[in-house]
């Protein structure tokens, strides 16, 4: 088994090297014909003390731009039986790739349920239009396009 694995990994490394060879400097038609990814705005509203935690968590999903706005919650006091909920909230606005939406939302839901004092609300709003190619590339973390255009 061990030998087989080694052989496989050798083959893989060979393929990898072949792929990475700078032989084809021209645009690869398969990559240049890709439809642009859609972008969305993700609003995450959490306790202020947990804002940093969620920003770090969201950065794992190829997010290049995040903004935090400080706000305050207005939930009625009678829901908060033990008055442990923080009234000061942070609104994190992140520009995300549409294809990552499901992973992010599911991940956030899990964190909302499992992290202590990490309760929050998250929702996404589609971005309908945008101007500037470089800005788009930056927001969608699209490094392939960037390399080709240089």
């Amino acid at each position, binding site marked *: 088994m061990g030998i087989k694995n080694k052989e496989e990994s050798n083959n893989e490394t060979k393929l990898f090297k072949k792929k990475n060879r700078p032989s084809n400097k021209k645009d690869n038609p398969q990559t240049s014909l890709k439809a642009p990814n859609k972008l969305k705005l993700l609003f995450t*509203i959490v306790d202020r003390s947990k804002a940093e935690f969620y920003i770090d968590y969201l950065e794992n999903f190829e997010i290049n731009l995040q903004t935090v706005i400080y706000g*305050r919650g*207005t939930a009625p006091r009678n829901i908060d039986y033990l008055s442990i909920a923080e009234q000061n909230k942070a609104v994190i606005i992140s520009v995300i790739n549409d294809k990552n939406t499901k992973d992010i*939302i599911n991940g956030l839901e899990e964190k909302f349920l499992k992290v202590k004092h990490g309760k929050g*609300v*998250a929702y*996404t709003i589609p971005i309908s239009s945008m101007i500037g190619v470089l800005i788009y590339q930056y927001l969608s973390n699209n490094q392939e396009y960037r390399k080709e255009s240089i």
Partner: protein
Amino acid sequence: MNNEYEVILCIVNTGFSEVVMETVRECGASGGTVINARGTARKEAEKIFNIVIHPEKEIVLVLIPKEIKESVLHSLYKAVGLNTPGQGIAFALPVDDVVGLTPINQKNEGK
């Protein structure tokens, strides 16, 4: 995942966020988030329409089910519309994926 919810953004003069929340709660929503903001307006417009625009504003974000959107916007218009001291503007944006609403909220919203 589904388009059952919308987020309402209501921009009002400072101090009126509680009025907004009371109005929204009467329509069935449970909680919201308030952000402090600063408004800008053309000075000439202020003279023409003979109104004073307070630069200090509050933005209230409220997630609501789509069914109560009309009633919420209508009552917001009546409570903190541009003709009232609140001088509010309210609009709704469609929301795609929502997580984190507690069962308590969902029960209240269903009523």
